[in-house]
């Protein structure tokens, strides 16, 4: 029983951190209808940048993170400005492959430039676990879960601001938003920038959990499963879906992994994607305007 509770609690916290990665995907999808398959690469690049700013340039912790968030925001903005905007009207496979090509470039360029070996994320979190009765909880997970909740809450507040309302209008209908004078292109670019900045913050947390190297980009599958289950255009869905995916994955892999060779975690996420698409493609909270066959 303790084992189960431990798995569930740690899984829930990890799930919230998945939700943070997924929120970047949701932000972009909401505004432009593009699923950014490079989000994993963005997270990796963000983590590398934080590491580089703090460990190489000697910035402090907070300035380092802020600088990385600003750089990643710029990268997101540039991605939209230089690449995605030219792809408007192209078939969806072209746009998906473009973001995947970007992912491959990031996966090669960032470790190539900053070093491929796994680096510790230089943030002061003690490795000692927190004991909750008999239950052992990873300190980094607690911080990660808390930051994830705060970030998603901040994003929810952001959608109440002027720019956020414009973004919601754009996600509803590009043409109508245009007609009432909302700068659609600039709004879409802004969503890419915000999603880049979120990726930098996510990178700090995941870098602290598993070290900074290329494997951070593998978070993509988890993030996709969370985003799809929650509904691709629902920010609140991301939190609940993150909890569900996190708990399921942790509990199932905790009980199944000893019997098979491991690697169950990836598969749980993949099964979630597959079943969601088959049974309820618009996810838990997504809008039901889906292209049906």
């Amino acid at each position, binding site marked *: 029983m303790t084992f189960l509770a431990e798995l569930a609690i740690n899984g829930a916290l990890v799930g919230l951190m998945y939700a943070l990665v997924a929120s970047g995907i949701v932000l972009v999808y909401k505004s432009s209808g593009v699923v950014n398959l490079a989000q994993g690469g963005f997270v990796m690049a963000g983590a590398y940048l934080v590491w580089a700013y703090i460990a190489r340039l000697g910035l402090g912790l907070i300035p380092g993170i802020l600088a990385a968030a600003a750089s990643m925001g710029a990268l997101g903005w540039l991605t939209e400005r230089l690449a995605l905007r030219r792809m408007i009207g192209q078939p969806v496979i072209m746009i998906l*492959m473009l973001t995947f090509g970007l992912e491959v470039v990031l996966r090669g360029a960032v470790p190539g430039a900053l070093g491929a070996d796994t680096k510790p994320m230089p943030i002061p979190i003690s490795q000692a676990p927190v004991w909750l009765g008999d239950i052992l909880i990873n300190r980094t997970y607690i911080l990660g879960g808390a930051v994830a909740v705060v970030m998603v809450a901040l994003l929810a507040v952001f959608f109440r601001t002027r720019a956020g309302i414009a973004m919601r209008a754009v996600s509803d209908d590009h043409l109508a938003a245009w007609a009432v004078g909302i700068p659609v292109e600039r709004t879409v670019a802004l969503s890419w920038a915000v999603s880049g900045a979120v990726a930098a913050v996510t990178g700090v947390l995941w870098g602290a959990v598993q070290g900074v190297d290329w494997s951070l980009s593998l978070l993509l599958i988890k993030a996709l499963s969370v985003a799809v289950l929650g509904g691709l255009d629902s920010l609140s869905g991301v939190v609940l879906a993150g909890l569900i995916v996190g708990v399921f994955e942790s509990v199932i892999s905790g009980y199944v992994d000893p019997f098979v060779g491991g690697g169950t975690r990836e598969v749980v996420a993949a099964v979630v994607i597959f079943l969601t698409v088959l049974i309820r493609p618009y996810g838990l909270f997504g809008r039901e305007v889906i292209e049906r066959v």
Partner: protein
Amino acid sequence: MFYRECGVRHTTYAADRALAVIPFERALLVLLIVLAAAAPWIVTDLFLVSYLTPWLIWTAAVLGLNLLMGWAGQIHLGYGAVMAVGAYTAVHVARAGAPFVVAVAAGGLVAAVIGSLFGLPALRVRGLYLAMSTLALQVIVDWILVQVPAISGGAQATLLVPRPHIFGILLVTDQARYWAAAVFAVLVALFVANVRRTDVGRALIALREKDYAAAVIGINVFYYKALAFFVSSFIGGMSGAALAFLYYRAVTPEQFGLNVSIMAVAMVIVGGLGSIIGSFFGAGFILLAPIWIEHGLRELAAALSVHISPSTLAHLPLVIYGGLITGFLLLEPLGLAKLYDNVRNYLRVWPFGYTKK
């Protein structure tokens, strides 16, 4: 000039629908086939084994995927898993003592059955959601292959492939393997080229353009979608088996991971959706260009005596490969086939360019 259509008259429907209408193209095809057959005496063994053979087998795989993506318009991000199923089935069948041709066909058949599973979501959703569910299935199939010892022999295991023999002739030399790959690629190309001319091919194209409209004019959308997934997976499975037998000579799960699926899609897109010659171009370009560009950069760096760290060099192919994908999508979304087509259209009317349609 070269592609002169002057004097090409079609007096029968059969002549009009021929695979190569322009005489110059027919001559070009014959020349290419002769060159391909004589390649072992023209190029070095290393070039034959490490470039030509994988290129031809990959072309067959890309043709299969192109049938699905270019003609039927269905996205598939899990083609590597389908190829893996084909490769593992073929190897197990061959280890049980079956001849090469039977093993490859069995690989294709099992891959087609499993691959139709990938098509299951296609009957309900399309586009983005289809892409994500095929991506998920790739991960699931990969995991099953690795985890079931009866298939892969366990997570770290490598299965040795028995020597292929065709009709009692053992394919031991590199040349024999190359010829087998070439024959396979030509057969697949002929098949796909002919599918395009049949009612099935036209139904698939109608499906791609708008499945709802296709249904209205009497095309059974479910049937043709399932058929497209089945046939393309059959070709993919056979190509996976061919890769295992003729190129790798051993199978591990990593040979057919997610990256391989992405590579296959990149080949289709860079080559050109719905183009046969594009499949040849795309497979060759994605397979060989990163190697050659990296070599070129290495030598350039040496010539200019600029030092590049080994870590940067190791990641260079990845950057080039990703850059090629993004670059092509941004600058020439119709791929290399379109570039070839531009040249061809220009030469068809040269020097009377103003007569261009």
